[in-house]
């Protein structure tokens, strides 16, 4: 607390000093002298308490000490429009001097393809993704839906959070690409509410449930076999120790496979971090290095383990490669993907 207050008070003095010789000095600074005594803001596109917020606040605690000059890293909530607001902030408003980076929804990088949103994620100054994720379809142990075949043939009541949300997208894929007979009950306010509905038997199952949050939030579900893992969607090769078939193994149609791949590719950038396009290259390089160092920091990993958060980092090159792959798909694949996920 005291250290934080000292930081607070040190800033005005620095400001006065900085105003004096601002323009001439800024260009010649090394990252260490630039960041010393400064703040880096981590803009979080969701309100406090969710998964993106949890990851970002944890990262913020350890990121600073891996940066030259050891800046204070301050998490800032900027919720809005399913984190689109923070993306647009990074895209066109945020300062490009290396004092701001942001985290936002993984599927936002598909927005320009599907909805024509006016930004290009390929131009962002990517730091990377702190983890990859696996998305699952599960059903409750007492439900009549126990297997993939049940899900295809019987009328399963699956929960949703409204068009465009992860559970609805996954369920729509099952319906539109695989012809499932499931019944989507949508409109739940959030994951918590759906999970409670599942537990009280209102729903047969949920799709789009993230493995990491399942493990951290409901270890008893897994331990006591309260749920059936029906199918998983992962951008990896499937060797992740999760006992469920890959969704890619359920079709041979090359076009469907390509569309599936496009949508699922975002699982590789499950907790993405990016600075504004055109961020100062020297400082960006320092931030990228610090990002990967933080992800390997034993103290950071220990805290993440306590919170049940997976850490399987992807560096900026990995993210950029995925984006190039996604954006090079032919229009018919993009159209099929768009139709499959129901948008």
């Amino acid at each position, binding site marked *: *607390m005291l250290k934080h207050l000292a930081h607070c008070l040190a800033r005005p003095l620095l*400001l006065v000093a900085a105003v004096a010789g601002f323009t001439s000095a800024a260009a010649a600074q090394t990252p260490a002298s630039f960041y010393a005594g400064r703040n880096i803001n981590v803009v979080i596109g969701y309100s*406090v*308490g969710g998964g993106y917020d949890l990851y970002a606040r944890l990262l913020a605690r350890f990121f600073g000490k891996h940066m030259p000059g050891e800046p204070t890293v301050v998490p800032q*909530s900027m919720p809005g429009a399913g984190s689109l607001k923070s993306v647009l902030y990074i895209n066109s408003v945020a300062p490009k001097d290396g004092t701001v980076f942001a985290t936002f929804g993984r599927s936002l990088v598909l927005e320009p393809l599907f909805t024509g949103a006016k930004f290009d994620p390929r131009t962002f100054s990517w730091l990377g993704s702190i983890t990859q994720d696996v998305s699952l379809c599960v059903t409750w142990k007492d439900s009549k839906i126990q297997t993939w075949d049940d899900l295809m043939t019987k009328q399963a009541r699956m929960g949703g959070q409204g068009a465009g949300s992860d559970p609805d997208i996954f369920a729509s894929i099952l319906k539109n690409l695989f012809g499932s007979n499931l019944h989507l009950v949508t409109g739940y*306010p959030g994951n*918590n509410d759906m999970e409670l509905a599942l537990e009280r038997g209102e729903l047969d199952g949920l799709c789009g449930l993230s493995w990491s949050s399942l493990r951290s939030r*409901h270890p008893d579900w897994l331990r006591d076999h309260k749920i059936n893992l029906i199918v998983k969607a992962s951008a990896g090769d499937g060797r992740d120790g999760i006992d469920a078939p890959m969704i890619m193994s359920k079709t041979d149609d090359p076009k469907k496979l390509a569309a599936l791949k496009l949508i699922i590719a975002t699982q590789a950038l499950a907790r993405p971090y990016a600075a504004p396009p055109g961020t100062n290259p020297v400082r960006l390089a320092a931030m990228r290095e610090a990002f990967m160092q933080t992800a390997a920091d034993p103290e950071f990993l220990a805290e993440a383990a306590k919170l049940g958060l997976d850490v399987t980092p992807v560096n900026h090159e990995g993210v950029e490669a995925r984006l190039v792959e996604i954006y090079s798909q032919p229009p018919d694949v993009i159209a099929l993907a768009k139709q499959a996920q129901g948008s």
Partner: protein
Amino acid sequence: MLEAAGQALALILEPARLAIMFAGVLLGLALGVIPGLGGIVGLALLIPFTYHMDAYSAFALLLGMASVTTVSDFIPAVLFGVPGTVGAAATVLDGYPMAQQGQAARAFGAGYTASLAGGIFGALMLALAIPVLRPVVLYLGSAELLSFCIFGLSMVAVLSGRAPLRGLTAASLGLMLSMIGSDPQTGTLRWTFDTLYLWDHLPLVPVTLGIFAVPELIDMAIRRQGVAGGAILGLKASSQWDGVRDTIRNWRLVLRCSALGALLGAVPGIGSAVIDWIAYGHAVQTEKNPETFGKGDVRGVIAAESSNNAKEGGHLVPTIAFGVPAGASMALLLSAFLMHGFTPGPDMLTKHLDVTYSIIWTLTLSHIMGALICLCASGLFARMALIRVGLLVPAVLAIIFLGAFDGSHSWGDLYAVAGFGALGWTMKQLGWPRPPLILGLVLGGTFERYLFISQELFGWSALARPVVAIVLLGAAWVMLKPVMSATRRILAGKGPHPAGQRGFQLNWNVGFTAAALVFTAIALWQTVEWPAHARIVPLAAGGAALLFGAGTLLTEMFARRPSKPDPVETLIPAVAHPQMDSAALALGGSTVEARLQRLRAWRFFLWLATLLATTLLIGLLPGLAVMMLLLVTLEFGEGWRRGLALSAGMSLAFWLLFDRLFATPWPDALAGDLWPGLRSLTHLL
């Protein structure tokens, strides 16, 4: 079980932990006093400091802080008519008139005692419910949640006072406002006008502050008198004890409202913003001599405060038993649980029972601490009501804007607080009840979600579920009782306006109602292109608004009226239209002539517009500094020295608190676009 409770108490009573809890309580009280800030901000701030504490100390700090924001949020509500958190809005209704009548100390005594009783009741309910927590929560499904929403909405009937048509119109408009944003079924963007701000629905804090707080400030600025308006404040300790005795005398009411608060608090989706209204409505409906409610009746304060504090215990139920947080602050608390190695869920009721009990003890003890601190300090607080109006109004207005901006850190928040401030003031002047609007706004979203879900899952068979049936019958009783008693009155020949002439007339009220109708019609027109699922509820709400609005309009134009001065002449509807809205009383005793009133009101709105324009140019903090300086000197004539001192002092405090401590992302200003260097240097533009 008793053993676990005893163990937990021993752990909590260790001096070091008590000291930590005390620190948490102090911070919580401070956050509760500042409008717009509350437990969420405090938790986000404190959680990083708990990483190296043991779990019991961490929860003592966090819960000690979070549970008492609802004790102190009451202070600005009574003193300035400005609710400290959204949960204190109903307190304003009777608490503020009490302060105006010089009874602030009595209101404090009653409010703190009721808070204390409510807080302990909530904790006790949590403790007693432990064995049955899980089955009870699992029993409440989507259909039950829907019935709770309907019950909440039925309170509109009570909260509209003697203006049922206006109340129903306001509630329908509130429902329509709640439909703004991305629709929960199809994702259709409804009434968002291509703004990102409206995607996620109107945030509650700016709207509540606009509807309830800004009008009080405007009226203070018009009257040019501080809160107590020259009345001698009852500062003596004895009058505070009067308040304590009031609460003890009304123990039955305290119990009923605490039970309501704790039960509704446990239901996800029924937020703190409506629980106090529901309890208030319950008090109005069940207590004897309800006509004094809204005019400084201490029972109104007791009802609102006991329920507002009891809900904390209720909020913890789903968090502890299922790991399902009942709100944002509980979601943050959940992450603290995880951080300390506890996974909320079944284990908390068996293996970690001592932790659960330590939480319950923390709730109890922190409420006791909070109430005692406030009781001791209330003389000090009550003196704040004596601050010169020329300094008070600019300072509180600045705090309100900052608090509103904390809602979602958007430009939209600033427009919303100003816009809803204008709406709230107009409604207050014209004698329209404001609580129904908020009730509709808060419950509308949840209502729509669970209406569809419940329909999909159960259809009409939902009505056969016992809890649904009982709650809906309760709602029907709440709605029909006023109708029946009104019918009885009319049959007995005691109509609402027995004397007075009938005749066509046009006045401000007719104009306002007509404007509301036009807005509704335009809004309904826009629904044409939406898919069916996105359209049903907005159409129903809009239809209701049209129907009730037309009824209001006809009544305004043709109804019998008592031969009292026309509202246009006085701008004071209090006498002409007796309302439950505290509104009515605010200007009651004023001697400011009508022309001057109107002039000052217009000037105030002009100042608000100036503030927005300045903020657009140079950023929010500098804009507020300029606004405070100009208001103090030019509007209130307090002199440049005072203006500079206030502006500089408050701005520094704001900067330390909001920029340094809370890391607020400030709104983009033109100066920052022009000089990006300045933006990255100060982070203020």
